[in-house]
């Protein structure tokens, strides 16, 4: 099978003071169509930087990114991002509906069609009745759903999700996890989910990439076979789920600097 997204020898160095800061060192991996890949790594290791390079929003210092075989220099059609800073990623002067239609611009739909589709997507993420609300009238979890709906709106083959569930409470989080997986499957989208939560990484994915501390490399790829249907209770009790979790947590603990706290 040909890869949807490929990265090879990706590196990013920021010009810092007094010395340049090396964030990413030699990242190579691929994502297949409709595959769900999680990336776990300690905070500050460069996960957001990596996603921005993959999305064509930030030029890497060296290495390459290809999407559907084409080199990525600008944001390609067919890739959507849910930004980590979701509350700031919504346009505060636009309603939830208008924020979602923004995601469809590249589809070239008519006004009415775009509007209908935006409302359908908002209903899909549980925001029926809130179409006319502005972002600042919505709770954090609801804003996040709008951002997710906007990313889904583009009918992208690939969703890049930057810690999309970090700021919501446990119950909402579980609901949104299942929603995201369900919608990605329904729309046959590949997902690259960045998270610092090992349980979430394993629960959601077909494969987990574990990142090192800076300068960041891929420590290990952990393949999973948890099946297409996941269940918040049953999946998390499966022996292979627990084994993968154990493996990843052990890896992360071993990579921690001496004397670091919990």
């Amino acid at each position: 099978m040909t890869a949807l997204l490929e990265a090879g020898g990706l590196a990013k160095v920021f010009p810092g003071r007094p010395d340049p800061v090396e964030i990413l060192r030699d990242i190579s991996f691929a994502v297949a169509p409709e595959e769900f890949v999680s990336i776990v790594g300690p905070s500050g290791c460069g996960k957001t930087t990596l996603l921005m390079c993959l999305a064509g929003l930030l030029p890497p210092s060296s290495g390459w990114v290809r999407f559907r075989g084409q080199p990525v220099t600008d944001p390609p059609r067919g890739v959507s991002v849910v930004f980590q800073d979701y509350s700031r990623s919504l346009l505060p002067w636009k309603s939830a509906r208008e924020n979602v239609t923004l995601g469809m611009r590249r589809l070239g739909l008519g006004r009415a069609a775009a509007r209908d589709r935006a409302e359908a997507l908002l209903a899909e993420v549980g925001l029926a009745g809130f179409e006319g609300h502005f972002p600042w009238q919505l709770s954090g979890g609801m804003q996040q759903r709008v951002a997710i709906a906007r990313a889904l709106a583009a009918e992208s083959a690939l969703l890049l999700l930057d810690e999309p569930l970090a700021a919501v409470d446990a119950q909402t989080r579980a609901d949104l996890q299942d929603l995201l997986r369900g919608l990605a499957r329904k729309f046959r989208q590949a997902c690259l989910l960045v998270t610092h939560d090992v349980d979430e990484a394993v629960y959601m994915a077909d494969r987990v990439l574990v990142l090192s501390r800076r300068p960041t490399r891929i420590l290990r790829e952990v393949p999973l076979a948890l099946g297409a249907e996941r269940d918040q209770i049953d999946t998390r009790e499966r022996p292979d789920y627990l084994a993968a979790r154990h493996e990843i947590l052990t890896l992360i603990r071993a990579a921690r600097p001496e004397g670091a706290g919990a």
Partner: protein
Amino acid sequence: MTALLRPVLALGLLAALWQAVVWAAVVPERYFPPIATVVQAGMSMIARGQMQQALFDTGSRAILGAIAVNLIGIGLGLAATGAPSLRRILDTVAAILQPVPPAAVVPMAVFALGLGWKLYAFVVVLVTIWPPYLATVSALAATNPVLLSVGRMAGFGPVAMLWHIRLPAAMPEILAGVRYATTIALIAVIVSEMITGRDGIGFLLFQKAFAIRIPEVFALMFAVGLLGSAMGLAVSAVYRGFAGWHLAQRGRAA
């Protein structure tokens, strides 16, 4: 309801304070007349048509001037944002001219431009253009980078980005500059009228003051106050139209 009640209450409070000062006789009554005397003076100026004429002269200069100068200032800000070399020139000019008070400009302008509309246009533009220009330039340069990324993901080129993301995001700051410019446009017009001494509220204020016609001076002050408030309300309406979301958002955060 409360929106109407508040200004009425404020006016009532002002009148009560005024009367209190008059009764306490802190200032000789000759220089601080009772409200009724001021109202009378104002009425007689209206009866003679003097008040309307002055309000029209000053108001048209200040309002047209403010509209024109804000549009030009924002336009220059947009142009400077697109052309960094223009921006460097304009920023230098702004740094030199911005601190010059209107009163310092008028005497020279009287000789060069006469007493007509050219003088007012010149003075208002010179002292008023910088707040909207500087606000536009700084706000357009400070767009939240996440929003720029969102725009790029949506496939926006530079023009669409400006129109759909940067300009709306900049509106609250730009309109704060507009509000300030509108205030100083009125000040600039009044000061120019005082110095040129031909017509307008500024001229009348000086004339009545030198003739020691104190109630009329106060009546004119109220008239300027009302004109200024009306201009402020107009700016507020524009603000609600273009950046109402910002007010509402702040209101919720507070």
